[in-house]
């Protein structure tokens, strides 16, 4: 029981971190059609900025300024880079961000070096939030979950209370016409890209000290957030939310389960020996296949429900 509950909590909080990361990506992808390969790099920048700021003036200011800084940077990337690529279509846009991810990780190393930087959890958030049976649940994880939820609500309000989403979607097909209707399209694009990056930055501020702040942190999270966005349904924020939780919980539980076909058959009274055909396949435990589960889910979803869980449009 203790184990199940704790694992569930762990899964949910991991899922919420995934959501923080993927919400910005979803935002940018759904609105601008840009698959931002550098998204995780902005997450990393968030962590590093927060580190740099927090050693000077503390964690709380960093929580505010680091995402703003990342957002500013994102807006500049859009303004001076992405915008001129936009006219060539989505593939060059994607490739632009792909190249950008290389550059960012190098610049980070240039400034902060190649090893882990000491970016600690602030003392006020360090410690157990509550104890479940004998396991403690850290305050910081609770804080992470809170931030994620606040993020969800504010993006939702932004999207439903403003026309920004509509403007951008329309501008994807007919930018000139949208402008002729009186909307400043380039500025909206810049804001959205900057905003998406700021969200990644915020995730970085929170995730950076929950885990480790190091130059490799971007690449390790990179592909999993794509899975989240696609499984949830491209462009669907709610979908990204559900998918994040699903994948978070799925992966967390899978790790914990040591069952394989061999043990299953053994329970049924059938013994499978090591020289049975396909033994290596049958003896794989769920814990061992945990890493492939998100991708398996992705492929299955794309085959059977290409729109994703809650997506509305295909492709």
């Amino acid at each position, binding site marked *: 029981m203790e184990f199940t509950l704790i694992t569930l909590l762990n899964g949910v909080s991991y899922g919420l971190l995934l959501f923080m990361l993927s919400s910005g990506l979803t935002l940018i992808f759904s609105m601008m059609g840009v698959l931002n390969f550098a998204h995780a790099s902005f997450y990393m920048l968030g962590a590093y900025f927060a580190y740099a700021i927090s050693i000077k003036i503390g964690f709380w200011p960093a929580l505010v300024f680091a995402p703003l800084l990342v957002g500013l940077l994102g807006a500049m990337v859009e303004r001076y880079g992405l915008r001129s690529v936009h006219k060539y279509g989505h593939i060059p846009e994607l490739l632009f961000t792909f190249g950008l991810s290389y550059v960012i990780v190098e610049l980070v190393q240039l400034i902060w070096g190649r090893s882990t930087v000491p970016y600690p959890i602030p003392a006020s958030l360090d410690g157990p939030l509550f104890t479940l049976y004998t396991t403690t649940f850290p305050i910081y994880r609770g804080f992470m979950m809170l931030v994620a939820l606040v993020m969800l609500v504010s993006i939702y309000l932004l999207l439903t209370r403003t026309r920004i989403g509509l403007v951008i979607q329309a501008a994807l097909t*007919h930018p*000139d016409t949208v402008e*002729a*209707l*009186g*909307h400043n399209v380039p500025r909206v694009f810049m804001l959205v890209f900057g905003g998406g990056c700021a969200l990644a930055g915020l995730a970085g501020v929170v995730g950076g000290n929950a885990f480790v702040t190091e130059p490799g942190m971007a690449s390790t999270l990179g592909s999993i957030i794509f899975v989240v966005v696609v499984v949830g349904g491209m462009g669907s924020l709610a979908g990204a939310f559900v998918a994040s939780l699903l994948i978070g919980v799925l992966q967390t539980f899978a790790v914990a389960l040591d069952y394989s076909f061999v043990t299953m058959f053994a329970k049924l009274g059938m013994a499978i020996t090591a020289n049975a055909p396909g033994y290596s396949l049958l003896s794989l435990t769920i814990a061992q296949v945990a890493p492939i589960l998100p991708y398996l889910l992705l492929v299955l979803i794309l085959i059977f429900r290409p729109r994703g869980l809650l997506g509305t449009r295909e492709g």
Partner: protein
Amino acid sequence: MSLLTIKNLNAYYGKSHVLHGVDMQVNAGEIVSLLGRNGVGRSTTVKATMGQVDATGSILFKGEEIIGLKAFQIAHKGLGYVPENRDIFPTLTVEQNLMLGQKSGRTTGDKPRWSMEDMYQMFPRLRERRNTQAGVMSGGEQQMLTLCRTLMGDPDLIMIDEPTEGLAPKIVELVAEYLKELKNRGISVLLVEQKLAIALEISQRVYVMGHGSIVFEGTPAELRVNENIRKEWLEV
């Protein structure tokens, strides 16, 4: 009183010079038609006015120079534009399309002349289809939608590029009626048309364009009697 004055307008697509010094004007409360064969540059004139094509010369709107401004800035000054190839937003619903017609951050406090309801009354078909994705609507329905979408922005002058293209004859008549109605509500119209009959029927003045410049200016009656111009520039 002149609402829009275009002087010596030259426009380019990259390097190709399309307009060679266009001069024309639209007065408040007028319907003016811009006629001409295919490819002479009528759409380009309108696009250049809207800031979508590189152009030199002078374009005064309500007395202000608008050349060089961005399209959205021009729109905010009260100029409306209905493009020729419809350009509806296919992934949005009809209603969302209309919503986008409203300008962001309107400054004028007074109520816009048009509400969504007016649009639906004008074209009941749109009301029926208000929650449909605009992309799947029929060609004609899309045409109606673009017109309404621009009206939602509450322009003082509306430039319409071939609004009757692809519409059933009966609807064409209807559109003509609505254009007159716009005029009655105090909106000026610059109409780019292919269908001569309609243009001549509803406009106060007409311009005929040929090879990137204006070759005729006058009233419909004057054009009707001017065999030469019609033969040479309108290929009837």
